[in-house]
């Protein structure tokens, strides 16, 4: 689509914006606007908008720059604190998950009954020992590390999160 334009649109807008339109505008420009449909449209649109800009600027009552700056700082600090606390929250969640896992395992053992539990327990311990003894040293170390972490993580999380 071909859009009708005029090279003097900017001149017309300048005249309106600086309060020269129509009475203080050049005769040449007024004659041009009379003859140019594009510039007539610019006058119809720009004149009320420029007037409304003046009204809006008079109405504007923004807060002082000092208060906007300080609010921004306070908010940025809050966001930084929130971001910093995220890893602690993750550790807390992991500790709770570990605790829940241990509780579930304990409950399963308890539900199977105490009668055969000692024998079962000893068999399980034997099975674990046999299984571990067949593992490579690296896997054994890893297994011990995971077990230690599962036991110590909730305690570490408690110590980190407790309020003195």
């Amino acid at each position, binding site marked *: 689509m071909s859009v009708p334009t005029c090279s003097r649109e900017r001149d017309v807008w300048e005249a309106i914006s600086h309060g020269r339109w129509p009475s203080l505008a050049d005769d040449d420009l007024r004659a041009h606007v009379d003859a140019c449909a594009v510039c007539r449209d*610019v006058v119809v*649109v*720009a004149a009320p908008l420029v007037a409304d800009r003046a*009204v809006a600027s008079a109405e*504007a009552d923004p807060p002082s720059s000092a208060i*906007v700056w300080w609010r921004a700082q306070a908010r940025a*600090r809050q966001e930084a604190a929130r971001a910093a606390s995220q890893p602690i929250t993750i550790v807390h969640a992991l500790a709770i998950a570990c605790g829940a896992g241990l509780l579930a395992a304990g409950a399963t053992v308890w539900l199977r009954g105490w009668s055969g539990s000692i024998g079962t327990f000893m068999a399980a311990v034997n099975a674990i020992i046999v299984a571990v003894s067949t593992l490579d040293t690296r896997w054994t170390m890893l297994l011990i590390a995971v077990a230690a972490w599962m036991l110590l993580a909730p305690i570490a999380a408690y110590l980190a999160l407790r309020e003195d």
Partner: protein
Amino acid sequence: MADVTFSEIERLRSDADEADVALAMDEDAFRAFYDRTAPALWAYLSRIAGDRQIADDLLQETYYRLLRARAPFESEAHRRNYLYRIATNLVRDTRRHPMPPVTPLADDDASHATARASRSTEDAERRAGLRQALGRLKPRERALLWLAYAHGSSHEEIAGVLGVKTASIKLLLYRARQRFIALLAGTVTAREKQS
């Protein structure tokens, strides 16, 4: 600028002193930039959003996002365009409904009583017609017309603010202008019929 109580400033100052936070400008530069741009930005927001309260809220949010931006600014004009782009996007995100046909922007505040008294009825009607016509435009058309004819922004600047190609601006602006003229004529006709 709105008044701030001394105690509030002191409280905010003590809060701000507690820790340094990374903002994109230092305080002096920000305050100078804000003082130069805030009234015009508020006018833009209030006219595009059609609501003083939204304009107040979005003004703070716009400057906050500018301060948190990591964009390198080549010049003051670049920073100002970026500011208007943030503001435009915020209005777009905030508004889910078309602007009300007539919003009494200036008439709900006692502090404007003097200015209100001095305005003629004809001016008030003209402004109401303008507001009505603006309210019937799409938000992007309002932004286009305001930037082009109230601010006098170039096509490149408008394209940067609205996030469209510079080559598209001429056509978009032409269409918005034609629509606005038709709406303005409609409001004038309606007023004439009423009177």
